[in-house]
């Protein structure tokens, strides 16, 4: 058994791929093709690259329908369905809100109320017209912007993993920035899958829980990272597209599902949701497992919805579901 490790800088993060198989030369060849797919998608989906397909949409879709490639059209269609299923807590049209909260090129500032209201009014997947016949996208009003930041990584690793699966004969783990990952098979015969630890958002060195994934995806979202302080509260870079304020739901959300794209989107949406909403969302997806940590004073309360911990550090009295 041989092991090959590859890495790529794309989508403003680092992707890593570990593969186990019989032939290191072929493993590497398959891995290179998978990573180059991620690079290709980054060039097309980036909100920050002025020449990307997404930037073309953002620059022109309020003036006219913008034709897009069929796969981007399908991704936008999926994003729209995910907005419906999360009751709008996930929404790729969050671009104007990200701008007004200063998270596009900075670490955030409190916006004027009128500016925030205007940005909120330009947010909503229902204001994006997807024309399947023409395979085009149009914004119903000026100033809207699509930002695939909360779904692009998941989509990219899902596409890359589908290339790896074509080769077969390997087990592999592919992650983007350690927050979204896909496991193909299991690293060895005597393991249930790849063991993944979910870090405590308040203390990265502390593992909240760990779980094994095999032929499925896991995504972990947290609003920390880019953040600013106002009063005694830290405001993170994930905006609730329904209200236009930084999210006030889970402090960390982990989602396991067969689709990395779905995991990526839902884990982001959960940051905006309370426990009741989380239960509601969990019922809408087959075979989804969720773990959320909600702030409770200075502590975190862990709530699990089918999330099996192999090495749980969740106190029994905090377990739920």
């Amino acid at each position, binding site marked *: 058994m041989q092991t090959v490790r590859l890495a790529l800088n794309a989508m403003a993060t680092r992707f890593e791929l570990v593969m186990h198989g019989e032939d290191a030369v072929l493993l590497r060849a398959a891995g290179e093709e998978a990573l180059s797919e991620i690079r290709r998608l980054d060039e097309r989906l980036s909100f920050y690259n002025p020449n990307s397909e997404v930037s073309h949409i953002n620059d022109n879709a309020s003036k006219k329908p913008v034709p897009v490639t*069929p796969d981007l059209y399908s991704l936008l269609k999926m994003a729209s369905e995910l907005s419906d299923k999360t009751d709008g807590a996930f929404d790729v049209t969050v671009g104007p809100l990200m701008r007004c909260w200063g998270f596009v090129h900075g670490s955030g500032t409190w916006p004027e109320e009128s500016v925030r209201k205007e940005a909120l009014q330009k947010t909503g997947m229902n204001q994006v017209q997807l024309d399947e016949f*023409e395979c085009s996208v149009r914004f119903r009003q000026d100033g809207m912007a699509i930002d695939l930041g909360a779904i692009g990584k998941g989509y990219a690793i899902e596409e890359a993993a589908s290339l790896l699966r074509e080769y077969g*004969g390997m087990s592999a783990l592919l992650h983007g920035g350690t927050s979204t990952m896909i496991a193909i098979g299991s690293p060895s015969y005597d393991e249930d899958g790849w063991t993944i630890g979910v870090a405590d958002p308040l203390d990265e060195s502390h593992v909240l829980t760990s779980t094994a994934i095999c032929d499925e995806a896991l995504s972990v979202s947290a609003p920390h990272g880019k953040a600013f302080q106002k009063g005694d509260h830290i405001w993170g870079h994930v905006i609730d597209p329904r209200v236009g304020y930084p999210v006030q739901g889970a402090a960390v959300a982990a989602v396991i599902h067969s689709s990395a794209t779905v995991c990526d989107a839902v884990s982001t949406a959960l940051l905006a949701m309370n426990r009741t909403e989380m239960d509601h969302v969990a019922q809408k997806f087959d075979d989804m497992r969720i773990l959320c940590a909600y702030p409770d004073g200075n502590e975190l309360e862990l709530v699990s919805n089918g999330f099996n911990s192999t090495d749980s550090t969740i106190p029994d009295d905090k377990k739920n579901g």
Partner: protein
Amino acid sequence: MGSAALSGAGLVRAANIKTRPWPGNRDDVHCGIIGYGPQGREITATLARVPGATVSAICDTYAPMLRRAQRDVPEATRHEDYREILDNPDIQAVIVATPTHLHRDIVLDALEAGKNVYCEAPMASSIDDAKAIARAARDVPEQIFQVGQIYRSNPQHRSVFQFMRSGAIGKPAMARGQWHAKESWRRASPNAERVRELNWRLDPELTTGLIGEAALLQMDVAYWVLGELPARVQGFGQIMGWNDGREIADTIQTIFEFPSGLHLIFDATLVSSYEEAYEVYMGSESTIVFRDRGKAWMFKEVDSLMLGWEVYARKDRFYKETGIALLANATQLDAQNLDPTEDDPNVETPMWYAMQEFMDNHAFGPYPPAANWERGLEAAAVAITANQAIVEGTAKEIDPLLYTLD
């Protein structure tokens, strides 16, 4: 159909193949893609966004590629034999994106079948094949034949080309270029026979090596901006990093001598990605650097004259040097109230412009494209000769007869 579709009537694109039944929009150019590897997919995705193009048929000899085609372009017909595409009278244009050594038969058959042809670069992997393709293209001037030397169609390159031809760098001193990547160049497949086919770039009998398969587009820009073809090439090649049984060099150095006396040094490697790909033209007044597929900067000598527009131009720092960004259509951007010192938000990729030129030629041509059979033959002949020099570790004359048709 929504109102968006109606108002976008002038913008009907290849994407409409998603739902529109064959043969689609009558005004569109129906294209067949032959070879659905990474390049074929890239071209297909690009055509989806080019006005007037519809990808209607896709050919690949390998079933998983056709499955990908079905997913990407469900409305296109799928074929294992390219002749089925050539036999279809509704297909006007074919794009040949197969391994280089397979171009000859397909291009000749396609031209014979009356199709307009876009052939990926390098045009061929042997002088015989290159000449056969060139001859066939020359003999049917009423059909379009465009080679994938895409920078020839790129507005950004065209703009810098004019600037350089106006003498901006002063007396040319020399030129240098590189293509660096860290990748094995191997391709994997669960099927052993398929692995051999896929790895044609590593097959000494079939490949034009790094100088042909990786560096050709950059070298083509050099011939264009310098206005001459090299007369002699010295080559070196080593296997430095990938000792996996391959026989072709993973690292090369070449020196091209041009009739004017100018020398161009080009190196390429699969072992290190340092600085990736760029070309530098050094002269007595300034040095011009191309990088990032068409971006360009000028670095002036301290004693060279101030240019009128220089104060308005965007400047970027490169360690201790300051480069003046050379942006295409800066004056038009100014007229549209877009800041000419920012990247133009409406810039498309070089591949998009190449495909647009190919499609425009269907509407307004046929006229010889910027990358016509002559440019294809020249670039292929130089690359093939340079690769021989690399393999043998010698210097080779580049006889103009190599790229001259009888």
